[in-house]
Protein backbone atom coordinates (compact mmCIF):
# COMPACT_ATOMS: atom_id res chain seq x y z
CA UNK A 1 0.00 0.00 0.00
CA UNK A 2 1.13 3.54 -0.49
CA UNK A 3 1.55 5.02 2.93
CA UNK A 4 4.15 3.47 5.23
CA UNK A 5 2.07 3.56 8.35
CA UNK A 6 4.98 3.11 10.68
CA UNK A 7 7.69 5.24 9.18
CA UNK A 8 6.40 8.81 9.16
CA UNK A 9 4.80 10.53 12.08
CA UNK A 10 5.00 14.20 11.10
CA UNK A 11 1.76 15.48 9.57
CA UNK A 12 3.04 16.81 6.25
CA UNK A 13 5.26 13.88 5.36
CA UNK A 14 2.74 11.06 4.78
CA UNK A 15 0.98 12.98 2.03
CA UNK A 16 4.13 13.78 0.14
CA UNK A 17 5.52 10.29 0.40
CA UNK A 18 2.17 8.83 -0.59
CA UNK A 19 2.12 10.93 -3.74
CA UNK A 20 5.64 10.01 -4.68
CA UNK A 21 5.50 6.34 -3.85
CA UNK A 22 2.29 5.39 -5.56
CA UNK A 23 2.72 3.92 -9.01
CA UNK A 24 -0.78 5.17 -9.71
CA UNK A 25 -0.17 8.80 -8.84
CA UNK A 26 -2.64 10.31 -6.45
CA UNK A 27 -3.00 14.03 -6.71
CA UNK A 28 -2.45 16.23 -3.69
CA UNK A 29 -5.97 17.48 -4.12
CA UNK A 30 -7.43 14.02 -3.55
CA UNK A 31 -5.37 13.38 -0.42
CA UNK A 32 -5.96 16.86 0.99
CA UNK A 33 -9.66 16.62 0.36
CA UNK A 34 -9.97 13.18 1.95
CA UNK A 35 -8.19 14.39 5.07
CA UNK A 36 -10.04 17.68 5.35
CA UNK A 37 -13.45 16.17 4.71
CA UNK A 38 -12.86 13.66 7.48
CA UNK A 39 -11.41 16.11 9.95
CA UNK A 40 -13.83 18.98 9.51
CA UNK A 41 -17.11 17.39 8.48
CA UNK A 42 -16.75 13.66 9.11
CA UNK A 43 -17.55 12.87 5.49
CA UNK A 44 -15.91 10.06 3.56
CA UNK A 45 -15.23 10.36 -0.15
CA UNK A 46 -17.38 7.41 -1.11
CA UNK A 47 -20.24 8.70 1.01
CA UNK A 48 -20.12 5.97 3.67
CA UNK A 49 -20.59 6.56 7.36
CA UNK A 50 -17.43 6.51 9.45
CA UNK A 51 -18.29 3.06 10.74
CA UNK A 52 -19.87 1.68 7.60
CA UNK A 53 -18.15 -1.22 5.86
CA UNK A 54 -18.40 -2.22 2.28
CA UNK A 55 -20.38 -5.28 1.42
CA UNK A 56 -18.61 -8.52 2.22
CA UNK A 57 -18.91 -11.08 -0.57
CA UNK A 58 -17.81 -14.69 -0.23
CA UNK A 59 -17.78 -16.95 -3.23
CA UNK A 60 -16.63 -20.55 -3.12
CA UNK A 61 -14.94 -22.19 -6.07
CA UNK A 62 -15.37 -25.59 -7.61
CA UNK A 63 -12.81 -27.46 -5.51
CA UNK A 64 -12.91 -27.59 -1.73
CA UNK A 65 -10.75 -24.86 -0.26
CA UNK A 66 -11.07 -22.29 -3.04
CA UNK A 67 -12.70 -19.07 -1.98
CA UNK A 68 -12.79 -15.50 -3.20
CA UNK A 69 -13.56 -12.82 -0.64
CA UNK A 70 -14.43 -9.25 -1.56
CA UNK A 71 -15.00 -6.05 0.39
CA UNK A 72 -16.67 -4.06 -2.34
CA UNK A 73 -13.99 -3.69 -5.05
CA UNK A 74 -11.16 -5.19 -2.96
CA UNK A 75 -10.81 -8.90 -3.75
CA UNK A 76 -8.58 -11.72 -2.57
CA UNK A 77 -8.47 -15.38 -3.56
CA UNK A 78 -7.35 -18.19 -1.28
CA UNK A 79 -6.65 -21.78 -2.18
CA UNK A 80 -5.95 -24.53 0.32
CA UNK A 81 -4.08 -27.76 -0.33
CA UNK A 82 -2.73 -30.52 1.83
CA UNK A 83 -0.09 -33.21 1.59
CA UNK A 84 1.35 -35.82 3.89
CA UNK A 85 4.93 -35.19 5.03
CA UNK A 86 7.34 -36.31 7.71
CA UNK A 87 7.24 -34.01 10.76
CA UNK A 88 10.31 -32.23 12.14
CA UNK A 89 11.88 -34.04 15.08
CA UNK A 90 11.15 -31.26 17.59
CA UNK A 91 7.39 -31.45 16.98
CA UNK A 92 6.58 -35.04 16.06
CA UNK A 93 2.87 -35.00 16.88
CA UNK A 94 1.70 -31.85 15.21
CA UNK A 95 0.73 -31.07 11.65
CA UNK A 96 1.93 -27.98 9.81
CA UNK A 97 -0.05 -25.04 8.48
CA UNK A 98 1.69 -22.46 6.30
CA UNK A 99 0.41 -19.29 4.66
CA UNK A 100 1.74 -17.68 1.51
CA UNK A 101 0.51 -14.28 0.41
CA UNK A 102 1.17 -12.86 -3.03
CA UNK A 103 0.55 -9.31 -4.15
CA UNK A 104 1.03 -9.00 -7.89
CA UNK A 105 0.41 -6.34 -10.55
CA UNK A 106 -3.06 -7.78 -11.10
CA UNK A 107 -4.12 -6.13 -7.87
CA UNK A 108 -2.56 -2.72 -8.35
CA UNK A 109 0.10 -1.11 -10.55
CA UNK A 110 2.11 -0.32 -7.44
CA UNK A 111 2.70 -4.00 -6.70
CA UNK A 112 5.67 -5.46 -8.50
CA UNK A 113 6.02 -9.10 -9.56
CA UNK A 114 8.70 -11.25 -7.95
CA UNK A 115 9.72 -11.20 -4.32
CA UNK A 116 6.95 -10.44 -1.84
CA UNK A 117 7.01 -6.79 -0.82
CA UNK A 118 7.22 -5.81 2.86
CA UNK A 119 3.50 -5.19 2.80
CA UNK A 120 2.77 -8.70 1.53
CA UNK A 121 5.07 -10.17 4.15
CA UNK A 122 3.38 -8.21 6.92
CA UNK A 123 -0.03 -9.42 5.76
CA UNK A 124 1.28 -13.01 5.71
CA UNK A 125 2.61 -12.54 9.24
CA UNK A 126 -0.71 -11.09 10.35
CA UNK A 127 -2.63 -14.07 8.98
CA UNK A 128 -0.19 -16.51 10.56
CA UNK A 129 -0.39 -14.85 13.97
CA UNK A 130 -4.14 -14.65 13.66
CA UNK A 131 -4.85 -18.25 12.76
CA UNK A 132 -1.89 -20.18 14.11
CA UNK A 133 -1.25 -17.93 17.07
CA UNK A 134 -4.81 -18.12 18.33
CA UNK A 135 -4.89 -21.91 17.79
CA UNK A 136 -7.87 -21.62 15.50
CA UNK A 137 -7.00 -24.80 13.61
CA UNK A 138 -6.14 -27.87 15.66
CA UNK A 139 -2.59 -28.86 14.68
CA UNK A 140 -2.58 -32.06 16.72
CA UNK A 141 -5.59 -33.39 14.84
CA UNK A 142 -3.45 -33.21 11.69
CA UNK A 143 -1.14 -35.90 12.99
CA UNK A 144 -1.51 -39.31 11.32
CA UNK A 145 1.29 -41.44 12.66
CA UNK A 146 3.31 -39.72 15.37
CA UNK A 147 6.87 -39.01 14.31
CA UNK A 148 6.37 -40.33 10.77
CA UNK A 149 3.42 -38.85 8.93
CA UNK A 150 1.54 -35.62 9.45
CA UNK A 151 -0.59 -33.40 7.28
CA UNK A 152 0.99 -30.24 5.95
CA UNK A 153 -1.70 -27.76 5.00
CA UNK A 154 -0.73 -24.88 2.76
CA UNK A 155 -2.91 -21.84 2.13
CA UNK A 156 -2.02 -19.63 -0.85
CA UNK A 157 -3.62 -16.22 -0.82
CA UNK A 158 -3.45 -13.97 -3.82
CA UNK A 159 -4.64 -10.39 -3.95
CA UNK A 160 -6.80 -9.77 -7.00
CA UNK A 161 -7.78 -6.15 -6.60
CA UNK A 162 -6.58 -3.53 -4.15
CA UNK A 163 -9.04 -0.86 -3.17
CA UNK A 164 -7.96 -0.59 0.45
CA UNK A 165 -8.22 -3.03 3.36
CA UNK A 166 -6.46 -5.80 1.49
CA UNK A 167 -5.12 -7.31 4.72
CA UNK A 168 -8.62 -8.00 6.04
CA UNK A 169 -9.76 -9.49 2.76
CA UNK A 170 -6.71 -11.79 2.62
CA UNK A 171 -7.15 -12.92 6.23
CA UNK A 172 -10.85 -13.66 5.84
CA UNK A 173 -10.14 -15.48 2.57
CA UNK A 174 -7.51 -17.66 4.30
CA UNK A 175 -9.93 -18.45 7.13
CA UNK A 176 -12.80 -19.35 4.79
CA UNK A 177 -10.46 -21.47 2.74
CA UNK A 178 -9.45 -23.47 5.82
CA UNK A 179 -13.09 -23.90 6.79
CA UNK A 180 -14.06 -25.05 3.32
CA UNK A 181 -11.15 -27.39 2.75
CA UNK A 182 -11.66 -31.14 2.88
CA UNK A 183 -8.72 -33.48 3.40
CA UNK A 184 -8.66 -37.14 2.43
CA UNK A 185 -9.77 -39.54 5.10
CA UNK A 186 -6.82 -41.49 6.53
CA UNK A 187 -7.14 -44.76 8.41
CA UNK A 188 -4.29 -45.82 10.70
CA UNK A 189 -3.82 -49.53 11.29
CA UNK A 190 -1.01 -50.04 13.75
CA UNK A 191 1.93 -48.06 12.40
CA UNK A 192 0.73 -47.88 8.79
CA UNK A 193 -1.64 -45.29 7.37
CA UNK A 194 -4.02 -45.91 4.50
CA UNK A 195 -5.16 -42.87 2.58
CA UNK A 196 -8.66 -43.25 1.18
CA UNK A 197 -9.48 -41.62 -2.11
CA UNK A 198 -12.44 -39.29 -2.48
CA UNK A 199 -14.54 -42.03 -4.07
CA UNK A 200 -14.01 -44.49 -1.20
CA UNK A 201 -14.65 -42.21 1.72
CA UNK A 202 -16.01 -38.71 1.95
CA UNK A 203 -13.19 -36.19 2.57
CA UNK A 204 -13.05 -34.82 6.07
CA UNK A 205 -13.02 -31.15 7.14
CA UNK A 206 -10.24 -29.67 9.27
CA UNK A 207 -11.06 -29.13 12.90
CA UNK A 208 -11.39 -25.40 13.41
CA UNK A 209 -12.05 -24.30 16.97
CA UNK A 210 -13.06 -20.69 16.46
CA UNK A 211 -13.08 -18.06 13.74
CA UNK A 212 -10.80 -15.11 14.44
CA UNK A 213 -11.68 -12.28 12.11
CA UNK A 214 -9.69 -9.04 11.70
CA UNK A 215 -11.35 -5.63 11.75
CA UNK A 216 -9.18 -2.78 10.48
CA UNK A 217 -9.46 0.90 11.32
CA UNK A 218 -7.60 3.74 9.62
CA UNK A 219 -6.53 6.55 11.94
CA UNK A 220 -6.33 10.19 10.99
CA UNK A 221 -4.66 12.91 12.99
CA UNK A 222 -6.91 15.68 14.28
CA UNK A 223 -6.54 19.03 12.51
CA UNK A 224 -3.42 20.84 13.66
CA UNK A 225 -5.06 24.21 14.24
CA UNK A 226 -8.26 24.63 16.19
CA UNK A 227 -7.91 24.57 19.95
CA UNK A 228 -11.58 25.25 20.43
CA UNK A 229 -12.45 21.68 21.18
CA UNK A 230 -10.29 18.84 22.36
CA UNK A 231 -10.31 16.83 19.19
CA UNK A 232 -9.41 13.17 19.32
CA UNK A 233 -8.18 11.30 16.29
CA UNK A 234 -10.72 10.45 13.63
CA UNK A 235 -10.96 6.80 12.80
CA UNK A 236 -12.83 5.07 10.03
CA UNK A 237 -13.69 1.45 9.53
CA UNK A 238 -12.72 -0.41 6.37
CA UNK A 239 -10.61 2.24 4.60
CA UNK A 240 -10.51 2.38 0.83
CA UNK A 241 -7.40 3.07 -1.26
CA UNK A 242 -7.54 6.86 -0.93
CA UNK A 243 -8.08 6.72 2.80
CA UNK A 244 -5.20 4.30 3.21
CA UNK A 245 -2.93 6.68 1.35
CA UNK A 246 -4.00 9.64 3.49
CA UNK A 247 -4.07 7.92 6.89
CA UNK A 248 -1.59 8.36 9.72
CA UNK A 249 -1.83 4.91 11.21
CA UNK A 250 -3.83 1.74 11.30
CA UNK A 251 -5.30 -0.42 14.03
CA UNK A 252 -6.33 -4.01 13.44
CA UNK A 253 -8.36 -5.87 16.06
CA UNK A 254 -9.03 -9.57 15.71
CA UNK A 255 -12.19 -10.88 17.36
CA UNK A 256 -13.82 -14.29 17.09
CA UNK A 257 -17.46 -15.29 16.93
CA UNK A 258 -17.76 -15.53 20.70
CA UNK A 259 -16.68 -11.93 21.13
CA UNK A 260 -13.22 -12.83 22.44
CA UNK A 261 -10.34 -10.60 21.45
CA UNK A 262 -7.78 -12.69 19.56
CA UNK A 263 -5.23 -10.10 18.59
CA UNK A 264 -4.31 -6.45 18.35
CA UNK A 265 -2.04 -5.24 15.56
CA UNK A 266 -0.91 -1.64 15.59
CA UNK A 267 2.17 -1.16 13.42
CA UNK A 268 3.50 2.21 14.49
CA UNK A 269 1.51 5.20 13.31
CA UNK A 270 0.01 7.90 15.48
CA UNK A 271 -0.44 7.36 19.21
CA UNK A 272 -3.87 6.38 20.52
CA UNK A 273 -5.52 6.78 23.87
CA UNK A 274 -6.64 3.54 25.52
CA UNK A 275 -10.23 4.78 25.64
CA UNK A 276 -10.24 5.02 21.84
CA UNK A 277 -8.93 1.47 21.57
CA UNK A 278 -11.64 0.25 23.97
CA UNK A 279 -14.31 1.96 21.91
CA UNK A 280 -12.91 0.48 18.71
CA UNK A 281 -12.87 -2.96 20.33
CA UNK A 282 -16.58 -2.79 21.16
CA UNK A 283 -17.33 -1.89 17.59
CA UNK A 284 -15.04 -4.65 16.35
CA UNK A 285 -16.90 -7.24 18.44
CA UNK A 286 -20.21 -6.35 16.77
CA UNK A 287 -18.63 -6.32 13.34
CA UNK A 288 -16.85 -9.65 13.89
CA UNK A 289 -20.11 -11.29 14.90
CA UNK A 290 -21.70 -10.05 11.66
CA UNK A 291 -18.79 -11.32 9.59
CA UNK A 292 -18.64 -14.75 11.24
CA UNK A 293 -22.42 -15.12 10.92
CA UNK A 294 -22.15 -14.32 7.24
CA UNK A 295 -19.25 -16.77 6.75
CA UNK A 296 -21.16 -19.59 8.40
CA UNK A 297 -24.30 -18.85 6.40
CA UNK A 298 -22.39 -18.87 3.10
CA UNK A 299 -20.61 -22.09 4.07
CA UNK A 300 -23.81 -23.96 4.88
CA UNK A 301 -25.41 -22.68 1.66
CA UNK A 302 -22.47 -23.88 -0.41
CA UNK A 303 -22.41 -27.27 1.30
CA UNK A 304 -26.15 -27.66 0.66
CA UNK A 305 -25.60 -26.94 -3.04
CA UNK A 306 -22.83 -29.53 -3.22
CA UNK A 307 -24.96 -32.08 -1.37
CA UNK A 308 -27.76 -31.59 -3.86
CA UNK A 309 -25.37 -31.86 -6.80
CA UNK A 310 -23.97 -35.08 -5.40
CA UNK A 311 -27.41 -36.59 -5.12
CA UNK A 312 -28.40 -35.67 -8.66
CA UNK A 313 -25.44 -37.36 -10.31
CA UNK A 314 -27.31 -37.96 -13.52
CA UNK A 315 -28.45 -34.41 -13.90
CA UNK A 316 -25.53 -32.25 -14.86
CA UNK A 317 -27.25 -28.87 -14.74
CA UNK A 318 -29.98 -27.75 -12.38
CA UNK A 319 -32.85 -25.97 -14.09
CA UNK A 320 -32.48 -22.81 -12.04
CA UNK A 321 -28.79 -22.40 -12.74
CA UNK A 322 -29.13 -22.38 -16.50
CA UNK A 323 -28.76 -19.03 -18.22
CA UNK A 324 -31.56 -18.09 -20.56
CA UNK A 325 -31.87 -15.21 -22.94
CA UNK A 326 -34.75 -13.64 -21.04
CA UNK A 327 -33.48 -13.61 -17.50
CA UNK A 328 -30.24 -14.24 -15.70
CA UNK A 329 -30.97 -16.11 -12.48
CA UNK A 330 -30.04 -14.39 -9.27
CA UNK A 331 -27.36 -16.87 -8.26
CA UNK A 332 -25.38 -16.19 -11.39
CA UNK A 333 -25.91 -12.47 -11.57
CA UNK A 334 -22.62 -10.79 -12.41
CA UNK A 335 -20.97 -9.21 -9.43
CA UNK A 336 -18.96 -6.08 -9.13
CA UNK A 337 -19.43 -2.46 -10.05
CA UNK A 338 -18.03 -2.73 -13.57
CA UNK A 339 -20.33 -5.60 -14.43
CA UNK A 340 -23.32 -3.67 -13.18
CA UNK A 341 -22.41 -0.68 -15.31
CA UNK A 342 -22.12 -2.86 -18.39
CA UNK A 343 -25.56 -4.26 -17.70
CA UNK A 344 -26.98 -0.76 -17.45
CA UNK A 345 -25.50 0.47 -20.70
CA UNK A 346 -28.65 0.61 -22.80
CA UNK A 347 -27.96 1.33 -26.45
CA UNK A 348 -28.37 5.07 -26.76
CA UNK A 349 -30.88 4.79 -29.54
CA UNK A 350 -31.99 8.36 -30.00
CA UNK A 351 -29.18 10.34 -31.55
CA UNK A 352 -28.96 13.82 -30.05
CA UNK A 353 -30.17 16.04 -32.87
CA UNK A 354 -27.93 19.04 -32.93
CA UNK A 355 -24.64 17.99 -31.40
CA UNK A 356 -21.51 19.85 -32.40
CA UNK A 357 -19.15 18.10 -34.81
CA UNK A 358 -15.74 16.64 -33.89
CA UNK A 359 -13.97 18.62 -31.18
CA UNK A 360 -11.96 21.39 -32.74
CA UNK A 361 -10.79 22.22 -29.27
CA UNK A 362 -11.85 25.22 -27.35
CA UNK A 363 -10.78 24.70 -23.78
CA UNK A 364 -14.08 26.21 -22.68
CA UNK A 365 -15.81 22.92 -23.39
CA UNK A 366 -13.91 21.00 -20.79
CA UNK A 367 -13.74 23.47 -17.98
CA UNK A 368 -16.80 25.21 -16.75
CA UNK A 369 -18.09 27.05 -13.74
CA UNK A 370 -21.72 26.41 -13.01
CA UNK A 371 -23.65 28.81 -10.81
CA UNK A 372 -26.49 27.06 -9.05
CA UNK A 373 -29.85 28.56 -8.37
CA UNK A 374 -29.62 27.82 -4.66
Amino acid at each position, binding site marked *: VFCPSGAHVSPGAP*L*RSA*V*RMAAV*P*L*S*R*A*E*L*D*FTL*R*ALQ*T*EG*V*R*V*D*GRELTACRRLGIRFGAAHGEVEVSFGPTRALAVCSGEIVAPPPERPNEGRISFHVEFGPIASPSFEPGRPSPHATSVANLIERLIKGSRAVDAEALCIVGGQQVWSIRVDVRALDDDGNLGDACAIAALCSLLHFRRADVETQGGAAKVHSAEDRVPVPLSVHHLPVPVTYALFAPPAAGKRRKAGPTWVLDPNRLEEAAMSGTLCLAVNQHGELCGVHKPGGMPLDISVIRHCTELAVTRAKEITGWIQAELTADLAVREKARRNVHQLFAAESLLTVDAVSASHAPRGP*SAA*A*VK*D*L*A*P*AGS*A*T*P*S*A*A*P*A*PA*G*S*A*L*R*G*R*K*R*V*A*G*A*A
Partner: protein
Amino acid sequence: MCLPGDRVPLDGACAGVGVAAEGGESFGFATAAGVLRRTGEVVSVENLRKRYIPREGDFVVGVVTQRSSEVYKVDIRAPSAAYLPTMAFNAATRKNRPALEVGSLVYARVQSAHPDLDTELSCIDPETKKAWTTGEVLLGELRGGLSFEVPLSAAQRLLDAECFVLDRLGQDFAYELCVGGNGRIWLLAPGARETVLLLQVIKRSFGMTDAQIEVMIQKMVEIFT
Protein backbone atom coordinates in the same frame (compact mmCIF):
# COMPACT_ATOMS: atom_id res chain seq x y z
CA MET B 1 -23.62 -3.51 -29.22
CA CYS B 2 -20.72 -4.33 -31.43
CA LEU B 3 -17.58 -6.41 -31.42
CA PRO B 4 -14.32 -5.63 -33.19
CA GLY B 5 -14.72 -6.39 -36.86
CA ASP B 6 -18.44 -5.66 -37.07
CA ARG B 7 -19.63 -3.51 -39.90
CA VAL B 8 -20.92 -0.15 -38.76
CA PRO B 9 -23.22 1.85 -41.06
CA LEU B 10 -21.97 5.42 -41.21
CA ASP B 11 -24.57 7.21 -43.37
CA GLY B 12 -22.43 10.22 -43.99
CA ALA B 13 -21.07 10.52 -40.48
CA CYS B 14 -17.38 10.44 -39.70
CA ALA B 15 -15.74 7.71 -37.67
CA GLY B 16 -15.03 8.52 -34.04
CA VAL B 17 -13.32 6.61 -31.29
CA GLY B 18 -13.37 2.89 -31.85
CA VAL B 19 -14.52 2.96 -35.45
CA ALA B 20 -12.29 2.77 -38.51
CA ALA B 21 -13.63 4.17 -41.78
CA GLU B 22 -12.57 1.72 -44.44
CA GLY B 23 -15.36 1.44 -46.93
CA GLY B 24 -15.62 5.05 -47.95
CA GLU B 25 -18.63 7.02 -46.77
CA SER B 26 -21.13 4.26 -46.32
CA PHE B 27 -19.74 1.97 -43.68
CA GLY B 28 -16.85 1.45 -41.32
CA PHE B 29 -15.55 -1.29 -39.05
CA ALA B 30 -15.64 -1.32 -35.29
CA THR B 31 -12.25 -1.68 -33.68
CA ALA B 32 -13.46 -1.88 -30.11
CA ALA B 33 -16.12 -3.82 -28.23
CA GLY B 34 -18.94 -1.81 -26.73
CA VAL B 35 -22.10 0.10 -27.46
CA LEU B 36 -22.41 2.14 -30.64
CA ARG B 37 -23.32 5.73 -30.16
CA ARG B 38 -24.08 8.34 -32.76
CA THR B 39 -23.92 12.00 -31.86
CA GLY B 40 -24.78 14.09 -34.86
CA GLU B 41 -21.95 13.50 -37.27
CA VAL B 42 -19.74 11.17 -35.30
CA VAL B 43 -20.22 7.46 -34.70
CA SER B 44 -18.17 6.04 -31.86
CA VAL B 45 -18.02 3.00 -29.60
CA GLU B 46 -18.58 3.38 -25.87
CA ASN B 47 -17.16 0.97 -23.33
CA LEU B 48 -15.59 0.94 -19.88
CA ARG B 49 -12.03 1.37 -21.01
CA LYS B 50 -9.88 3.54 -18.74
CA ARG B 51 -6.46 3.58 -20.38
CA TYR B 52 -6.06 6.73 -22.44
CA ILE B 53 -4.18 6.79 -25.75
CA PRO B 54 -2.93 10.36 -26.27
CA ARG B 55 -4.26 12.20 -29.28
CA GLU B 56 -3.12 15.56 -30.50
CA GLY B 57 -5.46 18.37 -29.60
CA ASP B 58 -7.15 16.66 -26.65
CA PHE B 59 -7.52 18.48 -23.38
CA VAL B 60 -6.38 16.37 -20.46
CA VAL B 61 -6.07 16.64 -16.69
CA GLY B 62 -2.78 15.31 -15.42
CA VAL B 63 -0.94 14.84 -12.12
CA VAL B 64 2.63 16.12 -11.87
CA THR B 65 4.90 13.28 -10.78
CA GLN B 66 8.36 14.82 -11.18
CA ARG B 67 9.74 18.25 -11.81
CA SER B 68 13.01 19.42 -13.22
CA SER B 69 14.16 22.88 -14.24
CA GLU B 70 13.08 22.37 -17.85
CA VAL B 71 10.11 20.10 -17.80
CA TYR B 72 7.38 18.55 -15.64
CA LYS B 73 6.66 14.86 -15.93
CA VAL B 74 2.90 14.46 -15.87
CA ASP B 75 0.80 11.33 -15.55
CA ILE B 76 -2.24 11.35 -17.81
CA ARG B 77 -3.40 7.73 -17.39
CA ALA B 78 -1.68 6.81 -20.65
CA PRO B 79 0.73 3.93 -21.20
CA SER B 80 3.64 6.32 -20.72
CA ALA B 81 4.09 9.64 -18.97
CA ALA B 82 3.77 12.98 -20.73
CA TYR B 83 6.04 16.01 -20.48
CA LEU B 84 5.00 19.58 -19.92
CA PRO B 85 7.69 22.22 -20.49
CA THR B 86 7.92 24.65 -17.59
CA MET B 87 7.74 27.59 -19.97
CA ALA B 88 4.61 26.41 -21.79
CA PHE B 89 2.26 28.86 -20.09
CA ASN B 90 0.76 32.04 -21.47
CA ALA B 91 3.29 34.86 -21.30
CA ALA B 92 5.71 32.90 -19.15
CA THR B 93 9.31 34.06 -18.88
CA ARG B 94 12.27 32.49 -17.12
CA LYS B 95 11.79 34.65 -14.08
CA ASN B 96 8.04 34.57 -14.09
CA ARG B 97 6.55 31.16 -14.54
CA PRO B 98 4.29 28.96 -12.42
CA ALA B 99 5.92 26.53 -10.00
CA LEU B 100 3.92 23.34 -9.94
CA GLU B 101 4.63 20.92 -7.14
CA VAL B 102 4.66 17.16 -7.29
CA GLY B 103 1.09 15.98 -6.94
CA SER B 104 -0.61 19.04 -8.33
CA LEU B 105 -3.26 18.84 -11.00
CA VAL B 106 -2.87 20.56 -14.33
CA TYR B 107 -5.26 21.07 -17.24
CA ALA B 108 -3.29 21.01 -20.48
CA ARG B 109 -3.60 20.38 -24.18
CA VAL B 110 -1.80 17.51 -25.88
CA GLN B 111 0.69 19.22 -28.14
CA SER B 112 2.16 16.17 -29.85
CA ALA B 113 1.34 12.52 -29.47
CA HIS B 114 3.32 10.19 -31.64
CA PRO B 115 3.17 6.56 -30.54
CA ASP B 116 6.96 6.21 -30.61
CA LEU B 117 7.86 9.49 -28.97
CA ASP B 118 7.13 11.07 -25.61
CA THR B 119 3.82 12.84 -25.40
CA GLU B 120 4.16 16.58 -25.05
CA LEU B 121 1.67 18.82 -23.29
CA SER B 122 1.23 22.54 -23.33
CA CYS B 123 -0.69 25.05 -21.25
CA ILE B 124 -0.51 27.84 -23.80
CA ASP B 125 -3.98 28.93 -24.80
CA PRO B 126 -3.76 30.66 -28.19
CA GLU B 127 -7.27 32.07 -27.92
CA THR B 128 -6.62 34.49 -25.08
CA LYS B 129 -3.93 37.11 -24.71
CA LYS B 130 -4.05 37.08 -20.91
CA ALA B 131 -0.98 36.06 -18.97
CA TRP B 132 -0.98 33.01 -16.70
CA THR B 133 -0.57 35.25 -13.67
CA THR B 134 -4.09 36.59 -13.97
CA GLY B 135 -5.53 33.15 -13.23
CA GLU B 136 -8.13 33.61 -15.93
CA VAL B 137 -6.51 31.31 -18.43
CA LEU B 138 -8.40 28.05 -18.41
CA LEU B 139 -5.31 25.94 -19.02
CA GLY B 140 -2.95 25.60 -16.10
CA GLU B 141 -2.91 24.48 -12.52
CA LEU B 142 -6.12 23.37 -10.85
CA ARG B 143 -6.03 24.31 -7.19
CA GLY B 144 -8.01 22.79 -4.37
CA GLY B 145 -11.02 20.64 -5.05
CA LEU B 146 -10.96 16.94 -5.64
CA SER B 147 -10.04 14.75 -8.57
CA PHE B 148 -11.44 11.38 -9.52
CA GLU B 149 -11.38 9.01 -12.46
CA VAL B 150 -14.06 7.73 -14.79
CA PRO B 151 -13.99 5.58 -17.93
CA LEU B 152 -13.04 7.42 -21.15
CA SER B 153 -16.51 7.12 -22.65
CA ALA B 154 -18.03 8.66 -19.54
CA ALA B 155 -15.69 11.63 -19.88
CA GLN B 156 -16.68 12.02 -23.53
CA ARG B 157 -20.33 12.12 -22.53
CA LEU B 158 -19.63 14.77 -19.94
CA LEU B 159 -17.88 16.86 -22.57
CA ASP B 160 -21.01 17.02 -24.75
CA ALA B 161 -22.50 20.43 -25.30
CA GLU B 162 -25.73 19.20 -23.72
CA CYS B 163 -24.99 17.01 -20.75
CA PHE B 164 -28.08 16.23 -18.70
CA VAL B 165 -26.27 15.34 -15.49
CA LEU B 166 -24.22 18.50 -15.31
CA ASP B 167 -27.10 20.78 -16.27
CA ARG B 168 -29.42 19.15 -13.76
CA LEU B 169 -26.83 19.39 -11.00
CA GLY B 170 -26.26 23.00 -11.97
CA GLN B 171 -29.87 23.78 -11.15
CA ASP B 172 -29.35 22.98 -7.48
CA PHE B 173 -25.64 23.35 -6.81
CA ALA B 174 -22.89 25.77 -7.61
CA TYR B 175 -19.68 24.03 -8.59
CA GLU B 176 -16.65 24.23 -10.82
CA LEU B 177 -15.73 21.27 -12.94
CA CYS B 178 -12.94 20.37 -15.30
CA VAL B 179 -13.32 17.25 -17.42
CA GLY B 180 -10.17 15.82 -18.98
CA GLY B 181 -10.46 13.74 -22.13
CA ASN B 182 -8.26 11.19 -20.40
CA GLY B 183 -10.93 10.33 -17.86
CA ARG B 184 -9.68 12.41 -14.95
CA ILE B 185 -12.12 14.95 -13.60
CA TRP B 186 -11.51 17.84 -11.20
CA LEU B 187 -14.34 19.12 -9.08
CA LEU B 188 -14.60 22.10 -6.76
CA ALA B 189 -17.66 22.77 -4.64
CA PRO B 190 -18.21 24.77 -1.43
CA GLY B 191 -18.67 22.04 1.20
CA ALA B 192 -17.21 18.55 1.62
CA ARG B 193 -20.67 16.99 1.70
CA GLU B 194 -21.71 18.70 -1.53
CA THR B 195 -18.50 17.71 -3.25
CA VAL B 196 -18.98 14.08 -2.31
CA LEU B 197 -22.59 14.19 -3.49
CA LEU B 198 -21.62 15.66 -6.86
CA LEU B 199 -18.78 13.17 -7.23
CA GLN B 200 -21.01 10.17 -6.57
CA VAL B 201 -23.71 11.42 -8.93
CA ILE B 202 -21.28 12.08 -11.77
CA LYS B 203 -19.52 8.76 -11.29
CA ARG B 204 -22.71 6.75 -11.33
CA SER B 205 -24.48 8.60 -14.10
CA PHE B 206 -22.71 6.84 -16.93
CA GLY B 207 -25.11 4.52 -18.70
CA MET B 208 -28.22 5.92 -17.04
CA THR B 209 -31.13 7.50 -18.81
CA ASP B 210 -32.25 11.01 -17.94
CA ALA B 211 -35.15 9.79 -15.83
CA GLN B 212 -32.90 7.48 -13.84
CA ILE B 213 -30.46 10.32 -13.25
CA GLU B 214 -33.27 12.50 -11.94
CA VAL B 215 -34.33 9.84 -9.47
CA MET B 216 -30.74 9.22 -8.41
CA ILE B 217 -30.13 12.91 -7.77
CA GLN B 218 -33.20 13.16 -5.59
CA LYS B 219 -32.17 10.12 -3.58
CA MET B 220 -28.65 11.40 -3.16
CA VAL B 221 -29.88 14.76 -1.95
CA GLU B 222 -32.02 12.98 0.64
CA ILE B 223 -29.11 10.89 1.83
CA PHE B 224 -26.66 13.73 2.08
CA THR B 225 -28.83 16.33 3.81
